[in-house]
């Protein structure tokens, strides 16, 4: 094609680089281990990615609005512990909404600080990571939380049940992804999120209430965290206080892998879902070919940096940075 110059091809490769690399990975893993693409394995990967995926959906909103959320991991621990504790105290029917309200309050608090008080989101959520961890420990007294009657509760349906042959966590993940995808792509609110992240000043001048949008993004994120906590609690019916520790990194990795820019203003729910799956399949593939569990940390590191590097290299049209 005439319009496709050499630079154009380079840009195309860089832009789709992560998908191409992913395809190479898939082919490699499949050759190394035939079970990799078997339906059971694929289902297993998606299922175990669901919790991470649900959290990544919310963080996508936050990142597109030009902010960060490092508190989702410890917030997820909080909601898991709370719902497990309340399950035995007030029953699951009341425990679930109560947990959602508490988690949303945390999200609203962060949203207030970052949105209305305009504080730096990195430091605020780093502080909240620590503060919410403290809150969880205070709540539980440092004890593991367990449901007394594990066999007799219907609460396990969110994490262990399945409908139409598909595990419920996957259904929740896909439904939520579809819903939030529509919100982000098709509603005025979604467009405002992009506007605020792309150019906050311009957005303000065009009459968008930046503070409110940012606030709502954090509330959205905490809602997703509550859903993730529900799945986690229901899956294991018992939990440590640190169940979500470190997840904020995986979540952020998935969102970045999906191509959302940390500068804000770009990214989609669909791409985030792809990012989550890439992360899940690569971690699974590494295990299947017999590598140690910890190797995935190192590989994830390389993948994150490569993904972001290719992305900005495509934008500036040069592989290496122009920093003197």
């Amino acid at each position, binding site marked *: 094609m005439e319009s496709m110059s050499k630079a154009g091809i380079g840009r195309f490769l860089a832009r789709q680089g992560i998908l191409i690399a992913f395809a190479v990975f898939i082919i490699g893993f499949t050759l190394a281990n035939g079970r990799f693409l078997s339906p059971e394995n694929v289902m297993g990967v998606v299922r175990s990615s669901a919790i991470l995926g649900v959290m990544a959906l919310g963080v996508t909103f936050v990142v597109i609005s*030009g*902010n*960060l959320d490092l508190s989702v991991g410890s917030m997820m621990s909080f909601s898991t512990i709370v719902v497990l504790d309340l399950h035995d105290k007030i029953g699951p029917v009341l425990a679930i909404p109560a947990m959602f309200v508490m988690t949303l309050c945390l999200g609203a608090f962060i949203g207030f*600080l970052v949105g209305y*008080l*305009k*504080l*730096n*989101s*990195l*430091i*605020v959520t*780093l*502080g*909240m*990571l*620590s*503060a*919410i*961890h*403290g*809150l*969880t*420990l*205070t709540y539980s007294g*440092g004890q593991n939380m367990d449901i007394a009657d594990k066999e007799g509760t219907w609460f396990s349906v969110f994490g262990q049940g399945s409908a139409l042959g598909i595990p419920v966590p996957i259904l929740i993940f896909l439904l939520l992804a579809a819903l939030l995808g529509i919100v982000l792509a098709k509603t005025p609110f979604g467009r405002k999120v992009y506007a605020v992240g792309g150019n906050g000043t311009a957005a303000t001048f065009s009459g968008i209430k930046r503070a409110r949008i940012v606030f709502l993004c954090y509330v959205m994120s905490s809602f997703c965290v509550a859903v993730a906590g529900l799945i986690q609690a229901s899956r294991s019916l018992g939990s440590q206080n640190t169940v979500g520790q470190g997840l904020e*990194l995986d979540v*952020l*990795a998935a969102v*970045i892998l999906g191509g959302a820019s*940390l*500068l*804000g203003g770009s990214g989609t729910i669909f791409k985030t879902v792809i990012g989550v799956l890439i992360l899940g399949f690569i971690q699974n593939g590494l295990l299947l070919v017999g590598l*140690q*569990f*910890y*190797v*995935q*940390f*190192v590989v*994830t*590191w*390389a993948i*994150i*940096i490569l993904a*972001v*590097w290719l992305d*900005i*290299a495509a934008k*500036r049209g040069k592989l*290496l*940075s*122009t*920093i*003197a």
Partner: protein
Amino acid sequence: MEAGNLSKFLKNGAIWGFIVIELIFFSVAGEFMSLSDKAFMDVDNMLLLLKQSAPIGIIAMGMTIIMVNGNIDLSVGAIFALSAVILLDSLTWTVFAGLGDWVIPVSWALALLTGVGLGAINGFIVWKTGVDAFIVTLGSMLGFRGLVFMYNGETPTSSLNWTLVDFAEAQFLGLHTATWFLAIVTLVMWYLMTRTVHGRNAYAIGDNRDAAVNAGIKVGPHMLINFMIIGFLAALSAVVFYSESGSVNPNDGQLYELWVITAVVLGGTKLTGGAGSIVSTLGGVLAIQLLRKGLGHIGADTSTVNLVIGLILIAVLFLDRQLNTKGKEELKL
């Protein structure tokens, strides 16, 4: 005093005022709430406080120059752990069996080299790829931690060398070895940042990178050197700490980045770069350690400490913005 001067005074002196308030509060509250008979401001207790400030403090000095430079390093906890593993493991390597106690300086050097090397990896990637330091070090926080686990699995790495322990537990002129290291690092970094071209350039780059480039400052090499400095200091912190304890868990150093950044931000260093000082960072380090120790003294547990530290970090951010006009230019990540 003019309003401008007042706010400047408040900003620069705030951290030391905060320390005084903490000292008074915990001394008074300790009288009523503490289980121990000892006063909070006991000399031994204060000396211990300085010693315990060292691991975070030494890294915080490096984080100050990194943040003044306009970058951030989230991987310090992982560098800390990996250097510690190298230190303790290399003490028992058979190649060095003939060295006797001379193995100590060799192991120290290896651990410090590890830190410098890891820092150089971060710095080089930031320089050459142009990817934001936040993402690069977020990644290496994961990657370096993976290396720690790959090294020895989930088992702790231990080796006790009594000469080393004696050295680490020694007190010279009343101060512990770790305190001396903190003092020397503070002094050297203070000199580096206020009296050398490299330090001045770090401020210039952080304040306005384009202007620095136009002024002919080589931004890339400066960033590389700063990442090597913080890598070295993270390793030094590990070396000082683990010489005494002699055993490192693969999870050690987790959340250190949080403590270090909290200390540096408490000390008034700007996230946007271009402003900050080593002396104020020292204040931030001491304030945090006082808070941890003080809360422990009046019987609060770790959960409360986590809660309070997190909220204080946010409060400081808020106050700082109210006092500082430059804070209005938000950091855009």
